[in-house]
């Protein structure tokens, strides 16, 4: 039981950045915009958060700046794909290529002179786990209550996101814009504006996910810190069927793979580390393939927003 609890603690910790980014990308994709820039935005969020906290010691400022920088990248994607009607796949890819490159550059440039301007290996303030007194002895449950503040915030964000999307007028408009922009436009919605807003919101949440990596999960900056998490997020959005509450399961599954991987590595096994490290990537391919094949039979429940990835303009009649 104790093993399960400790595994679960790590699972939730590893899943936090994934879930933030997944919920962010769900908002973006629900509006009809496919943003493959998650990996780049997450990386920029991570480096921004760490460098700000390193320079100022202010954790909240770190989070805010990470959200702003990541949101700014999302706006670039929004401008290219909404206003300039560029190909969304390529635009998202360019955000990722630029974001990972810039993060790597800044990580080697914003550090102290004594460390050759590199941020790697530096330490700064971090978010630590806060336990709830009295409940920290209960097995399983205590894992949920032995987390940092960013994870606790998620316990609110998930239900709020679900409620917003399915039970409010704004949520209905958002889904309508992603399903059928023409009709939504005829009903008086400003499709471009709504898409801009949710691409920005999505980007800011992705930035928070990145910030969690450098400020809480593995405090400190390291080259290539996201390690493909941004791409796993794109897959998690598909697994979730674009539903924030179902996204929780995907994040726990992939957080769990991380936790087991660390556990095995620490315990020492005969499996070479390279193969253990492959697990999340192989799992993504397998789960994605299985989900795609299954969802073709159960159309509707897991279907993507119909207008996802296509541009829209009132002038195109």
């Amino acid at each position, binding site marked *: 039981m104790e093993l399960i609890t400790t595994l679960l603690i790590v699972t939730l910790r590893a899943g936090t950045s994934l879930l933030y980014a997944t919920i962010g990308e769900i908002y973006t994709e629900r509006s009809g915009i496919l943003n493959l820039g998650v990996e780049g935005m997450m990386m920029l969020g991570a480096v921004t958060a760490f460098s700000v906290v390193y320079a100022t010691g202010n954790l909240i400022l770190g989070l805010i700046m990470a959200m702003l920088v990541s949101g700014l990248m999302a706006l670039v994607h929004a401008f290219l794909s909404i206003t*300039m009607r*560029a190909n969304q796949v390529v635009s998202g*890819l360019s955000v990722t290529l630029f974001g*990972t490159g810039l993060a790597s*550059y800044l990580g080697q440039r914003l550090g102290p002179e004594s460390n050759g301007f590199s941020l790697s290996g530096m330490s700064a303030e971090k978010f630590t786990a806060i336990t709830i007194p009295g409940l920290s002895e209960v097995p399983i449950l205590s894992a949920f209550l032995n987390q940092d503040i960013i994870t606790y915030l998620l316990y609110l964000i998930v239900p709020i996101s679900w409620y917003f999307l399915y039970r409010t007028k704004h949520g209905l408009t958002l889904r309508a814009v992603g399903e059928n922009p023409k009709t939504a436009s005829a009903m008086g919605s400003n499709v471009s504006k709504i898409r801009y807003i949710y691409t920005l919101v999505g980007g800011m949440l992705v930035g928070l996910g990145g910030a969690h990596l450098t400020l809480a999960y593995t405090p400190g900056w390291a080259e290539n810190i996201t390690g493909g998490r941004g791409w796993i997020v794109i*897959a998690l959005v*598909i697994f979730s069927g674009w539903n924030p509450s179902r996204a929780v399961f995907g994040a726990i599954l992939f957080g769990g793979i991380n936790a087991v991987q660390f556990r095995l590595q620490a315990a020492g096994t005969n499996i070479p580390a390279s*193969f253990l490290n*492959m697990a999340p990537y192989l799992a993504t391919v397998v789960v994605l393939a299985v989900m*795609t094949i299954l969802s073709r039979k159960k159309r509707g429940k897991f279907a993507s927003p119909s207008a996802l990835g296509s541009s829209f303009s009132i002038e195109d009649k």
Partner: protein
Amino acid sequence: MRLVLEKREAHSYKMTVLVPIISVGVSLLIGAFVLLFSHVNPLATYVYMFIGAFGSWSAFTETLVKAIPLMLTGLGVSVAFRLRFWNIGAEGQYVWGAIGTAWVMLYWNFIPNPMLLPVGLLIGMAAGAGWAGIPAVLKAVWKVDETLTTLMLNYVAILFAEFLYYGPWRDPEGYGFPGTKPFPEEAWLPRFSGRAHWGLLLAVVAAVILWFVLSRTKWGFEIQMIGKSPKAARCQGVNIKRNIILVIMLSGALSGLAGFAEVAAVSHRLQKGIATGYGYTAIIIAWMSQLNPIAALFVALLMAGLLVGGDQIQMMMGLPAAMGVVLQGLLLFPLLAGSIFTDYHLRIIRNKGGDA
């Protein structure tokens, strides 16, 4: 007064050439701000980068060394993009090309040494093609999203190569160096100047063949049609599934060829650092060359220049080499923003007293 985008009657060829050139300028301009932000003189940086990449013949041969794998992976990605199949797995396919070649070079003792080179080439290409075949089949048969599968398989390929050169294939006499034994010398792909090698010829020949196939044959026309309108292609009786699998395997084979050239001519072994992100730069090359194989060669040369220039500023000015990658990434933004002008043009409408 307001600005309106109006669809052009036809594709503007002036714009297809102008937009990429302007994009280079814009990317350098935005890059200058990044440099200023990190307290560096942008002009000096660019001058060092340019001299480091194109300033002398020996610098140019180093640029060629990086350009060769970029040309081949760029061609591979271009072919896939023609089908609107978003193959971002060139990196993994390139790594498999290197693994396949290394396997032949190190363990196929039953064939004479001089024969190892052509056989290694074939097996390297086959390995790249096979690796690309996985996402191709998943996409063609079950419609599994290829951006994710191709990308995830990059990590798997890189980790597998790592397993090989840290584990069973590690050179026992390598003093712990993460790499295999060197290949037999008779099987090296020859160099013509400095480290620049005949992989260049392979890349140019591949580009010419591709250009011919894509623009002058029925198959090329079919590929074009599937990419632009799968429905029309199906009506014409084109076998879409078979074409997706074939074309993507061809795409993987080209990246595999890049991996072959890299290990057979440059490193002469499979070693740590084989995957340096060529497969991702290939995406930029494909898009900037507008999927034209001949143009891809020149764009690859430019991208290689940015990489070598990046290495140079690291050595000369102590700046992170990643600046080269930043500039590459920056190229796509103005390029994407500008591409709208090939199909649309701006018109200014003056309202007279009306509401905007």
